[in-house]
């Protein structure tokens, strides 16, 4: 227990809040523009005061980690637990790291590694569940919802048909948008292997999509 730290926590946290309502708005936009710069700033803040800036880390990375967990695992509830597990592990690790180490962390890849490891530990206990296809009206852009929904369901189902390594590689590269170097670091696989997984994954998706379309055409006679 770190008793005296707490009264400090109260004050520091409030400072943290003010900070995130001010430049925080700007930094949210930065996520789109340059995640690496944003992460570097976040890492610096985590290094100087973990408790007051950890919430920013959660807010900045929860959507992408949830996407990765959901699209590689397939179950919404499992994904939610996995992301929480990932953040708890991250917090505990950060609490033991010296500031210099935290400042040098590449948060995107680092968190992804933790998520994938946590997922692997769980998968050992529980086999990969079937794909749960859900439609979140609030999260959809304003296009024809039925078309969008069908399309997303189709792609989610196609993804679920890939091998685990291909699916992870495709999700990290093309759903999350990580670079090959980042994926290689996060998965502990050589960059060439990751590229091959993505390449074969995409080819398998294309084949499966064509097959699905052919079936659909045959089911609906002209």
């Amino acid at each position, binding site marked *: *227990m*770190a*008793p*005296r*730290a*707490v*009264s400090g*926590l*109260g*004050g*520091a*946290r*409030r400072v943290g809040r003010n900070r995130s309502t001010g430049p925080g708005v700007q930094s949210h936009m930065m996520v789109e523009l340059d995640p690496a710069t944003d992460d570097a700033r976040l890492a610096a803040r985590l290094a100087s005061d973990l*408790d007051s800036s*950890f*919430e920013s880390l*959660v*807010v900045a990375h*929860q*959507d*992408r*980690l*949830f*996407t990765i967990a*959901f*699209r590689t695992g397939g179950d*919404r509830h499992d994904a*939610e637990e996995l*992301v*929480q597990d990932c*953040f*708890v592990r991250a*917090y*505990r690790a950060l609490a033991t790291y010296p500031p210099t180490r935290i400042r040098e962390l590449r948060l995107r890849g680092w968190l992804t590694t933790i998520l994938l490891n946590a997922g692997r530990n769980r998968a050992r206990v529980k086999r990969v569940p079937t794909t749960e296809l859900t439609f*979140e009206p609030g*999260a959809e852009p304003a296009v024809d919802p039925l078309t*969008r929904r069908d*399309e*997303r369901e189709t*792609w*989610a189902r196609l*993804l679920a048909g890939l091998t685990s390594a291909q699916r992870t590689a*495709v*999700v990290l*590269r*093309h*759903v*999350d*948008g990580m*670079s*090959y170097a980042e994926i290689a670091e996060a998965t502990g696989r050589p960059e060439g292997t990751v590229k091959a997984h*993505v*390449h074969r994954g*995409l080819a398998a*998706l*294309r084949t499966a999509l064509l097959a699905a379309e052919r079936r659909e055409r045959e089911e609906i006679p002209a």
Partner: protein
Amino acid sequence: MNDQIDPTTESALAGLREPAPVGLAHATLVAVGLADDYAVLHSPVGPLRVAWNGRGVSAVEEAPDDGVFEARFYARTGRVARRRDALPADLARKIERRLAGRHNRIDLDLRGSTAFERAVWMKALEIPRGEVRPYGWIAREIGRPKAVRAVGTALGQNPVPLIVPCHRVVRSDGMIGQYSLGGPRNKRRSWPARARIRTSSRRSPGPGSATSGRTRPTSTACRPATTRGV
């Protein structure tokens, strides 16, 4: 990049991004102890608000409503507490057992307290159900015999009354003393109905020990014998 990916596939895959469920961030912060959940617990002294996080129980308070509780909680801890329908089943069971006199393990989040306060609270935890001790007993037991008044203050700061039984600590002149959960009346009400009140000025009761100190059964007011100077 050098991927051979057609624009349709590219945008379809990018369209599979999924926002994290509402509440995930708060649940995560609760798990690491940077935010709290709370719910109402029905106790012998009436409804209480009990807050907890991944580190343990962080508050037990009598508050007129959620707003007052949340404001006080934030003022004391700097953390946001969010109302839940009920306590987690295992925590509710543990608290129930503790109130029934068991020495079970309940994790407490006492961040923000001083070493002295924690020493006082941990000593109060050793007082068995159905017994009381004077403030001076705690002061002596923790090696600060002159800090009787400070012991009283520390007990008043107890963030988790009932779980840490500060209601078992009374004034050495036999008066019941103050109580954070609604004053002296509730202090008495939080004692078991037919408590055998036992006071000891010398020795700490060991776990399950029934032999330390003098025994004075009482069936009316749970008022301890005067122990000053004993």
